[in-house]
């Protein structure tokens, strides 16, 4: 898990705005503080205010009130509102928004010329290489595919050398194949360029794969925010995402079993078997264990097809009083895993906090 360094600066966004379109009024009321490192995802259904929040942070919405601080810099308070063109952000729009009158090279140079820092040729080459757009330089935007446009837009935003990269569902306008084309670039970007990213998405898959920190919006308000694992293993997830409740852990590949095509991964002293996708030994992978894929047993069910069985202790039981299910948090060595089970099972097995229990993990998604 990415630990937030207490010395690293934070982004404080206490924003309020109301937008009118026709007779409809949309209110956004956000109070949030998140680390200005890593990737912070803003998750929510359409209409929850994700894009509006980004536009407020970028200064593109005019009627915003509140406080916006990026580390030491204040972009918005009672006295001033820094115009968009003075905010050091890179903004990747949902629809790329390349300039049609310029070719790819011209679009990138537009950013290079206006960056507040000198953009060295080596950095330019690095960005172009990272997004693999070197062969497109002479193309006009209308000659590019959706995925290519989006990659150029991301490169353009990086070349401004932003203090923060804002991405508004950069994959939303792409079909699945194109999504798979761009996603690996996104995952690699943060590591490579070390720019804090604010990433809007309605896809929990994308968020689980990329984000370190999550803000969940619903109807213009923050429902829950925290580290990716805190948010996804929480009972506070809005109803639409309850099926997505899961544990997200970082594990290290330690051993390969050639015979069964499996690899052994270790996290906090626990060992788990994963399918072998040619992961390097020693590599750290992010794993997602969906709560409904975890079942509980009072003893170790050796005569079971489930490979991953870990012993732990029940740390908490949260019952959804309106539904049939409960969320059980199990304390393994040093990690907590959540399991979604029926209330009936809890009653039948007399499950209680502090009990020893075996967790059976039916499937683990490897997020890369």
């Amino acid at each position: 898990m990415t630990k937030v360094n207490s010395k690293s600066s934070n982004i404080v966004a206490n924003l309020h705005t109301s937008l009118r379109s026709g007779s409809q009024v949309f209110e956004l009321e956000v109070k949030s503080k998140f680390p200005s490192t890593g990737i912070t995802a803003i998750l929510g259904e359409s209409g929850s205010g994700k894009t509006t929040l980004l536009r407020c942070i970028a200064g593109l919405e005019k009627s915003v009130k509140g406080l916006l601080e990026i580390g030491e810099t204040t972009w918005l308070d009672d006295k001033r509102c820094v115009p968009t063109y003075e905010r050091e952000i890179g903004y990747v729009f949902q629809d790329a928004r390349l300039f049609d009158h310029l070719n790819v090279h011209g679009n990138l140079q537009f950013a290079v010329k206006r960056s507040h820092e000198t953009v060295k040729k080596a950095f330019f080459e690095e960005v172009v290489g990272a997004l693999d757009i070197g062969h497109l330089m002479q193309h006009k935007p209308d000659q590019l595919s959706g995925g290519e446009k989006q990659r150029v837009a991301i490169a353009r935003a990086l070349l401004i050398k932003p203090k923060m990269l804002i991405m508004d569902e950069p994959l939303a306008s792409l079909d699945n194949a194109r999504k798979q084309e761009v996603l690996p670039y996104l995952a690699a970007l943060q590591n490579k360029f070390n720019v804090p990213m604010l990433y809007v998405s309605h896809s929990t898959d994308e968020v689980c794969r990329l984000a370190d920190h999550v803000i969940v919006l619903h109807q213009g308000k923050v429902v829950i925010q925290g580290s990716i694992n805190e948010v996804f293993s929480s009972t506070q997830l809005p109803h639409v995402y309850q099926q997505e409740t899961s544990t997200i852990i970082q594990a290290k590949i330690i051993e390969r079993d050639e015979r069964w095509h499996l690899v052994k991964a270790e996290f906090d002293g626990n060992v788990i078997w994963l399918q072998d996708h040619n992961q390097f030994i020693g590599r750290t992978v992010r794993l997602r264990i969906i709560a409904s894929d975890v079942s509980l047993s009072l003893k170790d069910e050796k005569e079971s097809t489930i490979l991953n069985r870990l012993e732990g202790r029940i740390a908490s039981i949260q019952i959804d009083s309106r539904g049939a299910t409960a969320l059980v948090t199990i304390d393994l060595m040093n990690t907590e895993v959540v399991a979604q089970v029926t209330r009936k099972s809890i009653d039948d097995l007399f499950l209680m906090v502090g009990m020893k229990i075996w967790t059976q993990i039916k499937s683990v998604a490897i997020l890369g």
Partner: protein
Amino acid sequence: MGLTDSDINAIWLTIKLAFTVTIILLIIGTPIAIWLAKTKSWLRGPINAIVALPLVLPPTVLGFYLLIAMGPNGPIGQLTEQLGVGLLPFTFWGLVIGSLFYSLPFVVQPIQNAVEAIGQKPLEAAATLHSQPMDTFFHVIVPLAKPGFISAAILGFAHTVGEFGIVLMIGGNIPMETKVVSIQIYDQVEALEYAGAHRLSAIMLGFSFIALLLLYSFQKRGLATKFRIGR
């Protein structure tokens, strides 16, 4: 072609007038067009209507008011006298002012349409790339609206060349000063010099056709914003 000196003077004067008016209109028409394309102010409707007035008013009405305004008791006349340039009616610069009003919609509307077609999106993208408003104007709006500007220039020029009524009202027919081609043709017809009238009319016909051909071939290639007004 057998043009007389007087014909050539009229042609030269017409070109000078149209050129001057087009340049000035591009400079003052552009901010008006951009404002009209972007504003949400209640003034949008009234200003739009004022800009479009010359499309529907008889040139004589416009000429009449301008004549009074530029006369010794009119506000423009008093201003020009105080500035020491004298009275403008029946001078070249009087014609320029009249033409500015008369051709304004032909320059403002194509630019306005082009800027509306660009929309907010590229401008927001430019702002996030540290582009200040003037920077965005020159490096995003102008290149993207270029076809609109070309339409505006062609129409502004051609329409100024083609005006008659307003010139007659505030310019008269002073050779080298206010006697433009359309007036020269009128004079020739009045004097029953049909041969001379034929020559100049043919030139005007050819010029106007080529100007419109240029305009519509731009539009056909999707380069220019559609222009649907005109008389």
